[in-house]
């Protein structure tokens, strides 16, 4: 024997009370599960409330014509049988214990490559397992293994990693304008401007702030190949929060690229070539490049953009700070 209190439910969609029209049972009566208890009128309808328990009616709270707010006790029962069991019979999948998030093509790829997708750590949005993650897992690439050959990558991945570091301290360069507010993005999704036969494609390295230089290099290679082959997925070209254009790759000294939708900053990396630079009072030949920033003035002023750019230049010129970047 256990006492149960049944409260006035919300009988419509967002109703606040119900009026007791008439009781269909008396105190002391024995009722079955779903036996009509009371007629209640709401703003929407007159309905019969069936009993949620099998048991004996101990008390009816309220008399005919009375308004009872939603949530206030309506009937107290002494529950007899086990007609209604308050324990789980069916377990419902919760995402925490359920399948890892991944799109069907990625699942298919995992199957093809013999990778158990449940064991793959996702680096995509909301820890989604990406195609890249599956390929890495398939190759047994240990992404945390130190990337030894520092010069084994092109300069671009280093610039991207440095840019991510700077964006962490200068969130406005990784933000976008909306009518309501300036929205600073949580993730740094770096769009790479890639020249293809069919024109410019901006492919995106998602969550670049969480990647080492080697991973950035691998991703940009894959994205560039995909862009040229026309095999990028919609996700590969969506969600950029900041962009980099390697204008130097076709020989330009500097560039003023147009902003990709959703971004406020594009960094143009000019051609790297020997220049006459002044070092310790001497003019010497040194490899150098011009970095230019296109930015959305609504989001950040010239001063803020300039500070971020100077910070980036400092980082790229400091051997010590470069070595501190995630590899």
């Amino acid at each position, binding site marked *: 024997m256990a006492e149960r209190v049944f409260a006035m*439910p919300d*009988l419509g*969609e967002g109703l606040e009370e119900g009026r007791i029209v008439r009781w269909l049972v008396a105190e002391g009566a024995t009722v079955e599960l779903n036996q009509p208890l009371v007629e209640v009128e709401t703003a929407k309808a007159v309905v*019969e409330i069936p009993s949620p328990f099998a048991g004996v009616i101990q008390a009816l709270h309220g008399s005919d014509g009375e308004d009872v707010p939603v949530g206030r006790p309506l009937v107290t029962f002494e529950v007899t049988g086990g007609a209604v069991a308050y*324990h*789980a019979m*069916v377990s419902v999948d*919760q995402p925490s214990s359920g399948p890892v998030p991944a799109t069907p093509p990625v699942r298919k790829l995992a199957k093809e490559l013999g990778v158990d997708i449940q064991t793959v750590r996702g680096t995509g949005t909301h820890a989604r397992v990406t195609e890249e993650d599956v390929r890495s897992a398939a190759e047994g690439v240990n992404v945390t293994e130190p990337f030894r050959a520092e010069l084994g990558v092109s300069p671009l991945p280093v610039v991207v990693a440095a840019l991510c570091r700077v964006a962490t301290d200068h969130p406005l360069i990784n933000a976008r304008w909306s009518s*309501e507010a300036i*929205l600073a993005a949580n993730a740094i999704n770096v769009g790479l401007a890639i020249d293809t036969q069919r024109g410019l494609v901006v492919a995106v390295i998602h969550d670049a702030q969480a990647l080492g230089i080697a991973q950035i290099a691998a991703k940009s290679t894959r994205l560039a190949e995909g862009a040229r082959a026309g095999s990028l997925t919609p996700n590969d070209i969506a969600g950029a929060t900041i962009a980099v254009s390697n204008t130097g790759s076709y020989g330009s000294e500097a560039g003023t690229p147009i902003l990709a939708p959703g971004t406020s900053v594009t960094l143009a990396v000019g051609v790297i070539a020997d220049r006459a630079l002044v070092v310790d009072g001497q003019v010497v030949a040194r490899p150098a490049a011009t970095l230019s920033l296109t930015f959305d003035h609504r989001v950040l002023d010239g001063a803020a953009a300039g500070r971020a750019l100077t910070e980036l230049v400092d980082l790229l010129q400091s051997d010590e700070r470069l070595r501190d970047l995630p590899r």
Partner: protein
Amino acid sequence: MSDEPEHGAGTEPVRILAPDGSPVGDADVGLSPEELRELLRWMVLARRLDRECVALQRQGELTVYPGFEGQEAAQVGSAFALGQLDFVWPTFRELAVALVRGVDAVQYLQYHRGTWHGGPYDPRATRFGPICIPIATQLPHAAGYALGQRLDGSDAVTMAYFGDGSTSEGDFHEAANLAGVWRLPMVLFCQNNGWAISLPSSEQTAGEIWRRAEGYGFPGVRVDGNDVLAVHRATARALERARRGDGPTLIEAMTYRIGAHSTADDATRYRDDAEVERARAADPIARFRSWLLAAGHADDRFVTACEEQADAFALEVRTGVIATPAPPAEWMFDWVYADPPPSLGRQRDEALG
């Protein structure tokens, strides 16, 4: 036709069993006696669960629930004809179809409990798409899916459910037009239950829905939606046609919504009790049961067993629904935007304290 609801006027629907259960057409629809019994079992189960769901809403365990009493034959008869890989795009009233597809009822009802958006069942595994509240929006999705099925080289068919009211939406037209132009492997299954909430179908559509198919360049058929055999045969033929590559079919199943539009609706405010009584006389379960018994395919013991199973099932689902925990409230905010706008952040802080 005084014994029919008003919306049944016009073209006589294709019928195998008369309302009293006597056969008026060829009752051999290619189902074995065991399969015929299954049809009854599903219909009894579905109605029992439907009533339990209404009770659960009245007890505060579901937030709102759209009942389908009266539409069991239309739903079970059509769903039973589907192949394993055929894909269903439902509205919000196809719980009986979901059951036949093998969707877990407790998971399905998470939607109506308000603990999940769309229900946590897996649409890919069950081949039953997410519950769709915005009227007719599932139809263009279905057409796109049917195109995908063909591009995949699959012979599976897309089954799109919708109501009479849905046919007033532009989405219906766009989907039907694409289905026709591209000869999509698709069946457009309309349950004409006489009402779109409080609007009778006579005020919704001046013509007959099944006839519209002609304009789209494919066949249409009006079938007695309370005759499970007729529904099954019409659906099986339409599926077969789509599977052969001959394109879509529009089926208008004439049925009736016995209950209110949903638990938040009071149908007595806009329709006659007499109309409901007439519809009850055309009850799909009583009709099929009496034919099944008369044809010797089942006996009273079987019928009783069906009812007992349905009671046990309803109790099991009730227990499962009540036991389902609410997910963490922050999920409401966490899974909508990749980068939540500040206003949502403020709501989140307010809601979570």
